[in-house]
């Protein structure tokens, strides 16, 4: 904010900018390098880490990308994403366990259901901005939690257990952790690439313009509410997709998936990783889920440490890990 304006005479050698930087599928050289590092980590990490833990991270990366599209690029702060995560988890679990659908169709139904719920919630919430928007999403998500607690469909406190992994497209047996791991590895890389592509498209430009200055965007002829709603629905559907994958991996959909902790966790992941960045959701998911994983023996201390991390990032490191790197490298990551 405070960096001084570049004076014309300082600009003898033009800087590399989005105008002059070559791109391939939305990847600048810097983003491509980060993506390749991420792909290498995905390929090599199962040699040293427990694959189920890694798959959980991948589900949260997808969830966090969904959230960052809304917060980081459209400027809408939702406190209710647990509703979409939970809705996706429950419907995917129900479809696989009770309707006997194949995993790809179960995941698809979870995704579509979360998207439809996003359409309804978004339609209500985008009428207000800022804090009111956040509070409406929180209230709607708490209603969903209450419904999940009361209706028989969700299995109440037990959740939907014993969700079969099944055979992907009838061929790949997902009951093997190896097969499931590589399936998720491909999916998470594809989703991050797609997320990058959406952000760096003409549509992404509109979203970023709305985050920057919605009034001005409207005065230039942009139907701001429609774009907010589309962004909200994409985000909700992607969240449902992430939750559906998580249900396939763990074989269970439960109240944990729809509790308010899920909504705050996805905020925390993006805050630590970097709001309004491509690789922030990736870095944030690795950091936050590792903290949870390795500190879980200490029980309630985990919450205290998470709280301290949250405060630390809000106070002194608001741009997050990737946001900080981005500033150093002067390139959008």
């Amino acid at each position, binding site marked *: 904010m405070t960096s001084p304006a570049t004076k014309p005479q300082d600009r003898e050698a033009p800087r590399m900018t989005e105008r002059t930087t070559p791109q391939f599928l939305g990847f600048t050289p810097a983003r491509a390098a980060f993506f390749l590092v991420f792909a290498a980590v995905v390929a090599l990490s199962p040699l040293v880490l427990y694959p189920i833990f890694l798959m959980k991270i991948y589900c949260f990366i997808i969830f966090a990308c969904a959230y960052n599209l809304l917060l980081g690029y459209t400027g809408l702060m939702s406190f209710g994403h647990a509703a979409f995560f939970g809705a996706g988890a429950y419907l995917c679990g129900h479809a696989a366990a009770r309707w006997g659908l194949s995993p790809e169709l179960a995941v698809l139904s979870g995704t579509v259901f979360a998207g439809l719920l996003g359409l309804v919630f978004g339609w209500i919430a985008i009428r207000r901005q800022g804090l009111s928007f956040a509070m409406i999403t929180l209230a709607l998500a708490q209603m969903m939690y209450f419904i999940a607690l009361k209706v028989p469909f969700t299995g109440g406190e037990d959740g939907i257990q014993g969700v079969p992994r099944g055979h992907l497209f009838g061929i790949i047996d997902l009951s093997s952790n190896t097969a499931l791991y590589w399936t998720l590895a491909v999916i998470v890389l594809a989703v991050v690439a797609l997320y990058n592509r959406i952000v760096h498209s*003409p549509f992404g*430009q509109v979203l970023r313009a709305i985050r920057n200055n919605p009034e001005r965007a*409207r*005065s*230039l*002829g942009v139907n701001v509410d429609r774009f907010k709603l589309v962004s909200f629905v994409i985000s909700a559907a992607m969240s449902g997709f992430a939750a559906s994958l998580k249900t396939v991996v763990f074989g269970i959909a439960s109240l944990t998936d729809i509790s308010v902790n899920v909504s705050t966790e996805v905020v925390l992941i993006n805050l630590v990783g970097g709001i309004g960045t491509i690789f922030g959701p990736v870095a944030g998911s690795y950091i936050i889920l590792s903290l949870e994983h390795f500190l879980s023996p200490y029980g309630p201390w985990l919450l205290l440490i998470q709280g301290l991390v949250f405060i630390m990032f809000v106070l002194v490191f608001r741009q997050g890990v990737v946001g900080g790197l981005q500033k150093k490298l002067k390139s959008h990551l």
Partner: protein
Amino acid sequence: MTQTVLEVRGLTRRFGAFKAVDGVDLDIAEGEIHALIGPNGAGKTTCFNLLTGSLPASSGTIRLRGETISGLGMDRIAQRGLVRSYQISSIFPDFTALNNVRFALQQGRRTNFDFWRSELSLTGLNDAAMGLLDDLGLSDWAEVRAGDLPYGRKRALEIATTLALDPQVLLLDEPTSGMGREDIGRVTDLIRKVAAGRTVVMVEHNLPVVKGLCERVTVLARGQVIARGTYDEVAGDPRVVEAYLGKAHA
């Protein structure tokens, strides 16, 4: 007499019991530069907000080329060719200056929902965007983050962005406010230049600018039109002098 582009009848906006704009009639002719002047609180900016649809009118009608636009949203009105600039510079601070203008150019291309294409598909608009930046003396600032531009340049950037939509009717809300004398000269020249082939309505406090630029003037006071005509006609009108200076001088 040329054709009327913008026809306003009985435009009224209430805020509670207070009438900020009270039964305003306006006829803006094709191709003219029209000034809306008046003392502070006369309702000029509210009038602008009503014309562009950023505020709904309490009553009255607005017609653009014979078609009623009152009741449409600001985005729809902009799409029909009536576009405004703001009194306080309204830009996209995180975009470069070039991207600000290019974003407006993108609006004419129906590419807004293209999420599968690269943003590089927009580089075809760079030359047009640079041309507009050049017109406003901003070409050396093209790659600077818009939020880091000095004040006068932000104003210029906002006008460039507005012009990028190639509006038929251009509404400028105090285009020279807060500018140094040198910048005022440049913006005045620019307005004269862009007014060719379109209609300009501007709110302006700087009366020498109005005198030099505007063919016709409408004077507002307390939400009502108190005079209209050429600058010299309204300047000599006792009601105008009274509104500006108080009764003692009238």
